[in-house]
């Protein structure tokens, strides 16, 4: 079994957590014990296998931004680092997931009946300050959440990411108590990089430009900055599961260079971490290693994660020490944690770090 397929199998854990949330109150909860998760995962695994594989059709833009509701799961991740006119630096994440809860469209008469559930996360992360975060979970009934094909877009309540069909730019709009954003995200000459695994595929698009307005700490400001996006679809999405944690890092090195890495490592420690990277340009991805900066303090709870990492890039001879842009804790979401990160000594270099299933056994 290939590493990619293992990652894909693992990915279902994240979606199981979503399914469990649907049965609850709708608020974010810590993940259930592994055994329960595995039992729940068995059913989700079977459901996922009832959907078609992601296929191998050529990728197209902006067409592949659009909803692919024939797939079991899909995601839209947009993250970036913007700067206000006064020099304030603020990171952001706006992330949408769709998961099919049953193979066919809901046939119940209830207006609440749905086949798909959506989860979204908005995080606004000021440099050195406390992040503001909210997660929403909803269903594709009564217009509460959904995804479109023409023009391409996805929304959960009033949070939305949509494609301007003419320009290909992405319009982001979302707000929560204490923060909100209204951004236009455009390409700046970089090309999307295909992401291909056995159970999912899609693309990662680094080097995007951001303009727009940000509401934060009672103020509204014009901002400009940089972003990246990742769009995946298939029978699962990447996440840690079982005995393995998954660290995902997207990092913008500036001057058009960027790397995207996934690393599986044992929750209990030991073993050999398995790292796979792609990069722009491609040669930059060779031989990259990454490890938590402080291995002497493993995560002790489900919501405690190694936020500081050391990333070595042999192709460029660099060793990056990365850490969260914000000072406070971010939102633990269903067994996962994510934050905008910056490199020690090079704050213009930024990235998104996403960790899942890091709680020790």
């Amino acid at each position, binding site marked *: 079994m290939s590493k990619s397929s293992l990652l894909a199998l693992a990915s279902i854990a994240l979606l199981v957590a979503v399914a469990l949330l649907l049965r609850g109150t709708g608020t974010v909860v810590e993940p259930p014990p592994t*055994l329960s998760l595995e039992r729940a995962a068995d059913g989700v695994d079977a459901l996922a296998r009832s959907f078609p594989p992601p296929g191998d059709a050529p990728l197209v833009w902006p067409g592949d931004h659009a909803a692919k509701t024939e797939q079991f799961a899909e995601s839209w991740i947009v993250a970036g680092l913007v700067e206000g006119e006064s020099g304030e630096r603020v990171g952001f994440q706006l992330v949408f997931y769709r998961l099919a809860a049953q193979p066919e469209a809901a046939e119940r008469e209830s207006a609440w009946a749905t086949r798909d559930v959506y989860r979204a996360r908005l995080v606004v992360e000021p440099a050195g300050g406390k992040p503001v975060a909210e997660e929403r979970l909803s269903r594709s009934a009564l217009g509460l959440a959904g995804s479109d094909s023409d023009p391409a877009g996805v929304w959960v309540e009033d949070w939305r990411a949509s494609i301007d069909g003419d320009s290909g730019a992405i319009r982001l709009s979302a707000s929560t108590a204490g923060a909100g954003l209204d951004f236009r995200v455009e390409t700046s000459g970089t090309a999307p990089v295909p992401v291909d695994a056995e159970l999912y595929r899609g693309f990662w698009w680094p080097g995007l430009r951001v303009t727009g307005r940000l509401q934060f700490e009672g103020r509204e400001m014009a901002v400009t900055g940089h972003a990246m996006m990742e769009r995946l679809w298939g029978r699962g999405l990447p996440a840690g599961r079982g005995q393995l944690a998954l660290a995902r890092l997207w990092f913008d090195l500036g001057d058009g260079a960027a790397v995207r890495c996934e690393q599986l490592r044992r929750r209990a420690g030991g*073993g050999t971490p398995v790292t796979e990277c792609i990069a722009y340009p491609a040669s930059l991805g060779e031989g990259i290693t990454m490890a938590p900066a402080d291995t002497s303090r493993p995560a002790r709870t489900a919501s405690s994660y190694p936020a500081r990492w050391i990333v070595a890039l042999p192709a460029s001879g660099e060793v990056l020490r990365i850490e969260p842009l914000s000072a406070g804790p971010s939102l633990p979401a269903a067994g996962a944690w994510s934050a905008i990160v910056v490199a020690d000594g090079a704050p213009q270099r930024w990235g998104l770090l996403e960790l899942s299933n890091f709680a020790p056994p």
Partner: protein
Amino acid sequence: MRIVGPACITLVLWGCGNSAEAPLVLGATGELPKALQRAGDPELGREILLNRGYVSCGVPFAAYQAASPARGPDPKLAGRLGRNAELPYDLNFTVDQNGVELVVSNCLACHGGRFDGELVIGLGNAFADFSGNPVRTIEGIGLLVEDGAPAEAWQRWADRIAAIAPYMVTDTVGVNPAPNLTMALMAHRDPSSLRWHEEPQLAPPPTAPLPTAVPPWWRMQKKHAMFYHGGGQGDHVPFMMLKSLVCTDTLEEARMIDEWFTHVRAFIASIEPPAWPYAVDEALAAEGEQVFGRHCAACHGSYGEAWSYPNLVVPLEQVGTDPAYARQAIEAERFIRWFNRSFYGRGAQARPAPGYVAPPLDAVWATAPYLHNDSVPSIAALLDSSQRPAYWRHLDEPREYDQETLGWRFETSPHGKASAAGPAEARTIYDTTRPGYGNGGHTFGDALSESERRAVIEYLKTL
């Protein structure tokens, strides 16, 4: 030292001397001494081979099912009991001391080969691929393992495989790394207690395994000693059970497996070579028998009801085939000593010789490619050294057997690994210019005429 015959795993010996110990006794070229073997029940041995956990660590069954939901018992083997019947032929089912159901490897990944689509127990698998590092897969399986005892079982197995992984990655598809990985296992174990050490206690073997062919089990009906250099002397059981070195940490478990393998050895020694499944030109074969008798039988023996087999180790300088493997074995003093003082060395002796055993040729037509390192793709090329390709690869889509040359369909490559388009192509090329991969020597067939070679080939079909 390459263990010839029924080795589930092999022993290679490599290293430097220790002047404080008694001089090492190596094997000699010439006739191998015969050793009385312990009696066993062949039928019970087959049952053990195909159903029990002589490799006692592996993948938790639930994780295996989640990872491989579509991989069933193909082909079905008679005598697979209980959950073994649900598994592919090269995996067994067992339950560990904590009650965790496990899927473990058995001997057939290497010692089960296919001929014309049929699985033949005891035929070496010349198409197995050990060119990939297994660590990604074994670590990745952890995604599917639950907390508690299953996690503990997976971690133990994964750590063992990771310890030997650097020594078992071949650079060519089809060749086998078992001798090297066996040395790596010895380096991690105390020979007396079999206790596992995370750090090697002996200098480990080189990380580039020499290529070895997997010999057919049916040769053990005639062979006095195991391995290509004849170094597996005395009781054959300890050599045959060396695969259990991966997980067997106690003498108690080793004794149990030793008892099991008394019967497994009896089964292996009972295996009859398969019969040539196609037509034979009887007249031509009769001519070939005469040529064989004059040119080949002195080393390879005679066949038929009044068969004879001389059990000869032919000196390296006489046979002329790639010497790296035998030399590695005789220089591996620390591993020779490890074996001989270990639990496994009670009734067996590791005594590699500076030569290669001329094997019995029963069903040799089924055992392509040829020589101890799989370097010659067909009997036709073995008998005419001018026809041996320097660079070649098997054609596996589809896999076809050539009844004229007695080998699997292959193509020559215009270049070796160094000029390959990339790693994916390089690993498919058998490059005879690489150390240990040489295809020279055993040029005895060059003295024959073309018609004599054709006759010998026809005769070999009848063995």
